Structure formats: C-alpha cells, structure tokens
C-alpha cells in the first residue's frame, strides 16, 4: 500500500475531477473578468474616466484607515490582460502539471500570485501597494523553489534577495513620502515635482522588479520554476510591475533620472541581446528576450511616450506568455531537456505548437502585421523623431538588430536544424492546445485591436518599405547561417564566456558580495566563538567532565574486575605490612 506524502494537500486520485472543476471554474471566472475589465477599460478610456473606490476600515482621532481601489483605463486594461493570461496558464497547467504530486499547492500559489498582482495594480496607495509588491516577491520565490533541486533553491534565493532589495528601496521611498502627509499617489500627482530621493528610490525599486541592469541576474535564474509559472510570472506580470509603476510616476522623472534610465535601459538591452545570443537554454533565451523588451518599454517611457510603452507592455505580455507555453510543450516533448542543441526540425514533429511559437517569435521581432509590430514600430519611429544622442540611437538600433539575430538563431536551432532527438511522447492534451490556440488568436489580433479601439495615432516617419526590412534581414540570416557557419561555433574565447555569463553579473550580485560577509563572519567566528575564551572556559571544563565520566563509567561497567583488583591490592598491602 502506498501512502501519498502530500495527503494533506492532495484531494487524492479519486477526486481528480474536482481539481479539473476547480481549474476550469477559475478559467471561466478569469475569462469573464478579462472581458469585463477590457470592456470597462475601453469605456473609461473613451470617456476619460477614473474612479476611486474607498473602503473605510475605521476612523479614529482624525486618522483614517482605508483601502482605496483605483479604476482607470490603465489599471483595467492591465488587469484584463493579467486575468486572460492567468486563465490560460491555469488551463495549460491542467495538462502540464497533471503528473505532479504537489499540483494543488501549485494552483494555490498561482492564485495567490494573481491576487497580489490585483492589489499591486488596483492600489493607488504606496502603503497598500507594498502588500501586492511583497506578495509578488514572496510567491514568486515559492514558485521558483517549487521543484526541490539545489539549482531551484539557489535561483530562488537569488530571486528573493534581489526582490527584497527592491522592497527596501520601496520602503525608503514610502518613508520619504511621509513628509507629504499622504501615501496616496493621486494626491502626490497634485504636486509639480516631488523630492528627487523619493523618486530615485522608487525607480530603483522598479528596476529590481523589472530586472534592469545591475539587478538583472535573477530573471534567467528564475527560469528554474515550472514553465507555466515562467509564462505568467516572469513574462507578463511580475516583471511588468516595475514598468507599470514607472508609467504611473513618469510625470516626475527629472532630466537626471531620464539620463540615468536611458543609460540603464540601453545597457540592459545590450546585456540581454548578447546573453540570448550565446545562451543554449531555451527558457533562458526567452527570459533574456523578456529583459530586452522590458528595457525597450522603459526606454520608450523615458523618451516621453508612456502610453505607447504601456501598450507595448500589454501586447508583449500576451505574445511572450504564448512563447513560454509553447516552449514548455517542446521541453516536455524532449523529456525535460531545455538545451536548444537537442532540438531540431520541431516543425515536422509538432506542427501546431511550432506555428504558435513562430508567430509569437515574429511578434517579438516586430514582423509587420503581427501584434508586436504595432507598438514596436511606433516606438522606433518616436525614438528617431526625438532629439537623442546619435550614440544612443546607434546602440538602440544595434539592440533591435540583436533581437533579430537571437530570434533567428532560435528559429534556426528549433526548426531548420536536422533532427537531433526522436520524439516519441507526443503530447495530445486538449487543455494545453486550447490555451495555446486562444493566446495565439489574441497575440495576432491584440496589437491592431488596441490601436483601433484606443484610437492612438502617431505620425509615420519611415516609408512603408522600411517596415519590411525585417523580412529581408531574416532572408539574409537564413543564407548566412546556412552557407557560412553556425553562430556560436569556434568562438570559445573569454569574450564569449563573458557575454554568455551576463557580463559576470550573477557572480557580482551573489558570490562577490556574499563571500565578503561569509569571510568576515568566519573570521569573527574563529576569533570570538572559537577563541581562547571558548577553549579555556567551555571546552576544557566540558572535556574534564566528559573524561571523568568516561572513567567512572568504565569503573562501573567493570565492577567485578575492580572488586577483584581491590581485593588483590588489599592482600598485597597486608603482605607488605
């Protein structure tokens, strides 16, 4: 008889339908909320409305404890996308996590995550916002360490500590906010400018959540989580929380902060582009791509078009979650291997999912008329229109070029390369397919839909032929890769190692810092705990008592021998006398 270790959580095999019902109910609930929030958001945008719902807990000595919810088109649109993706991820996990022992814990954690995201988006109060902010950090840590391996644990700790650093910055910002007498940021918007330190700490907190340059080592490491989690958490919700807050506070960005953010976002784009180019783990490549897109959003916000950045955030969330869901299916087809060198000719072996993957990949590149194109193209045009340093512009275009190169590399390894792994475990799960197809539909129409419905129009700078440049680039890469050589061949030098290791950022953000504290504490431990005091006072007395006890024990255990010995000694003494 086998007893399930997880019996407290698990409903048992007999209640499998209950699990499905739980998830399906959630799915339909989420889908309903998605449609509701989307339509209400459109209405709010049309009439330029914003609604504040206040719930008073209690009122004492002119001190009001209340919970405030902000409903405007930004929050409603964002929430609708979050609910759409989380619904699809729930449905997908029904198939993907079906063989898992701890699946109920997984569902609860994902649900808690969505709740935290809800609080983060809806609360216009910095003090209440930290509820959602902290919830995101904690639940994402629990989800990263969902698998119990050492790799997951170390990744989880990295994620947790960098997110904690972000919390610290946010708390510092809140402390400064006390000078204004209110944590409600709609009240703060009445000021012309806020204190630079407060905004600086807030921006730093956002940068940690959005995995920008000095704090970006956690995002690829967090891919140790199950793939549906990566799809929800590390592409569309958690990492976009920082961008969302930057959009909210974009009014207060001073010129110094703008300079700071431009530098950091361009550095992150380069870091992620090179990282994705020399990375061989499928999930990590997509994580790098996410990091690049986030810096792209921050760059567009800083350049003055924060609504465009926000729309790119929404569109990116949908196609990136689809990319992750498809990659999850590929990984399970390959028996858990995430190395893209093991993949090859997947289009032949799993055509439906491959086409979903390709469409989302094209979206992320900005191929014309896929959803990513609509926002990305406008952002590029806006950047060209703005008065920006030529050097920055060069790096910006180079980063877009890098996006194309690593996307094509992925395409090459997954679909053009010869078969490296014969797949026999074909996945025929209707839930996984349905969620992928639904997101596919959304990722095709969502970009154009946003532009029709929200009535956003910007001047086009480039001729329409330029927009098809990307397709020519693809043909060029195809020839280059096929005729000449593979990109990461014979490049095993220090530079490749440097680029593939994210400029040694994981080392600098973990071992480099921690080792100093460890060495110091080891020194103190040896000096104080293991010093002369310890030796003289504790160890000596302990050893004395221990040795005495052992001696007495041996006397006690050999009592007969001792009696005999004492008798002999007694006789000896008598004879002596």
């Amino acid at each position, binding site marked *: *008889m086998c*007893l399930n*270790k997880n*019996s407290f959580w698990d409903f048992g095999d007999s209640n499998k339908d209950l699990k499905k019902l739980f998830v399906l109910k959630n799915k339909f609930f989420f889908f309903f909320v998605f449609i509701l929030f989307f339509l209400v958001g459109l209405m709010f945008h049309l009439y330029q409305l914003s609604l504040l719902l206040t719930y008073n807990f209690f009122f004492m000595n002119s001190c009001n404890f209340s919970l405030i919810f902000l409903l405007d088109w930004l929050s409603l649109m964002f929430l609708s996308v979050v609910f759409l993706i989380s619904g699809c991820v729930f449905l997908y996990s029904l198939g993907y996590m079906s063989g898992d*022992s701890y699946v109920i814990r997984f569902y609860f954690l994902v649900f808690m995550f969505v709740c935290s995201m809800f609080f983060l988006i809806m609360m216009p109060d910095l003090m209440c916002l930290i509820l959602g902010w902290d919830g995101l950090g904690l639940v994402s840590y629990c989800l990263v360490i969902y*698998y*119990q*391996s*050492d*790799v997951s644990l170390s990744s989880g700790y990295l994620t947790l500590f960098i997110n904690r650093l972000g919390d610290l910055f946010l708390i510092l910002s809140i402390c400064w906010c006390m000078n204004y007498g209110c944590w409600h940021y709609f009240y703060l918007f009445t000021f012309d400018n806020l204190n630079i330190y407060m905004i600086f700490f807030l921006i730093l907190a956002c940068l940690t959540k959005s995995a920008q340059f000095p704090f970006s080592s956690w995002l690829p490491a967090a891919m*140790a989580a199950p793939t549906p989690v990566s799809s929800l958490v590390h592409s569309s919700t958690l990492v976009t929380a920082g961008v969302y807050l930057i959009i909210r506070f974009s009014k207060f960005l001073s010129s110094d902060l703008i300079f700071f953010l431009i530098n950091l976002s361009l550095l992150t784009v380069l870091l992620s582009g090179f990282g994705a180019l*020399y*990375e*061989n*783990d499928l999930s990590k490549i997509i994580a790098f791509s996410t990091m690049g897109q986030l810096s792209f959003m921050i760059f567009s916000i800083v350049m003055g078009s924060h609504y465009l950045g926000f729309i790119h955030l929404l569109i990116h969330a949908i196609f990136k979650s689809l990319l992750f869901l498809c990659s999850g299916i590929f990984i399970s087809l*390959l*028996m*858990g*291997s*995430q*190395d*893209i*060198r*093991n993949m*090859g000719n997947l289009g032949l072996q799993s055509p439906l999912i491959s086409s979903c993957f390709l469409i989302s990949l094209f979206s992320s590149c900005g191929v014309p008329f896929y959803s990513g194109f609509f926002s990305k193209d406008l952002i590029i045009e806006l950047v060209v229109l703005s008065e920006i340093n030529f050097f920055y512009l060069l790096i910006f275009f180079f980063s877009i070029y890098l996006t194309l190169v690593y996307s094509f590399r992925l395409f090459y*390894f997954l679909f053009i*390369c*010869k*078969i*490296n792994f014969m797949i026999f475990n074909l996945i025929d799960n209707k839930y996984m397919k349905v969620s992928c197809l639904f997101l596919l539909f959304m990722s095709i129409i969502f970009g154009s839909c946003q532009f029709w419905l929200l009535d956003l129009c910007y001047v086009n700078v480039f001729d329409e032929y330029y927009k098809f440049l990307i397709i020519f680039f693809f043909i060029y890469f195809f020839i280059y890769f096929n005729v000449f050589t*593979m990109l*990461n*061949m*014979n490049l*095993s030098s220090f530079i*490749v*190692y440097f680029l*593939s*290791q994210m400029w040694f950022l994981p080392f600098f953000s973990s071992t480099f810092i921690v080792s100093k504290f460890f060495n110091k504490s080891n020194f103190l431990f040896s000096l104080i705990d293991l010093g002369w005091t310890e030796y003289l006072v504790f160890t000596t007395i302990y050893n004395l008592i221990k040795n005495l006890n052992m001696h007495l024990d041996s006397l006690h255990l050999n009592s007969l021998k001792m009696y005999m010995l004492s008798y002999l000694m007694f006789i000896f003494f008598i004879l002596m006398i």
Partner: protein
Amino acid sequence: MGVPNIPLRIPSHAQKVCSLYKRALRCLESHTPDRPLMRYKAVLLRDRFERNRCEKDAVKATKYLLDGEKELFENAHHQPKVFAASAGEVLWNRYGVSPDSVLDYWHPLEKAQYPEYFARREQRKRQMEQWWEKTYGKPGQDEKSHH
C-alpha cells in the same frame, strides 16, 4: 560533485588517449548542433588520432597527448551539452524523496487519519523484526537495537 579529485590509480598512456578522445568528441558535440556535420568532424578527429596511433617514441607520444589536452582546454565550450537528468542539471533531484522512517514521527492524530495503513505498517515492522532475529540473532544486552 563533491568527490575530491584524488588519483586512485595510475592510468596508462592508452587510457589517457582514449579519455582525451572521448572528451574531444563530447566537446565537438557541444559545438556542433548539426548531427551530420558533427559526424563528419568526428571522422576528421578520429583521423587525427589514428595518424599517431603507432607512435613508438614515448616522448613524442606524451607530447601529442599534452598538445591534445591543451587544444581541448582552449576549445572547451562555455555551456557543454549535458543530459537533462545529469547532476546539477534541470531534472536532477527535482523531487526530494523523504525517507520512509519519517512516517514513524507522525503525530498520533495524523496517524489516526489512516488507521488501516498504520496498523498494517506496525504489523509489518513486527514481522520484519522477527525475521531479522530469526536470521541474524537477537541483539546483545548492551545494544539497544539491531544494527
């Protein structure tokens, strides 16, 4: 993984060459995802080894070996291709399995939720003890339990 690199035996020259050949093939595999191209390169690699196979001069042979090791080190891949279930990889130790003895430390209230199972478990433990004593003898007076 955790095992110190203490040389437990002295490998012969042939063994060292075979090991180098195997590692070189693995390195080639990491560098070349295209399987037919990798096979072609593997044949070329084999040819390089075969050319010096009948080298009688021990000094020269050792030099070839050291050169090969150096070349392998210089061309090492930054992310070698390893199996997903290998140590330190994504599938390694994904589910921690707690030992069976943990069940003995459950609270009686927890145990009461599965009365049949625990009754049978106790019975089986007794049977196991009887079998052990029958086979290996009873424990000595100083010993508290079977070892």
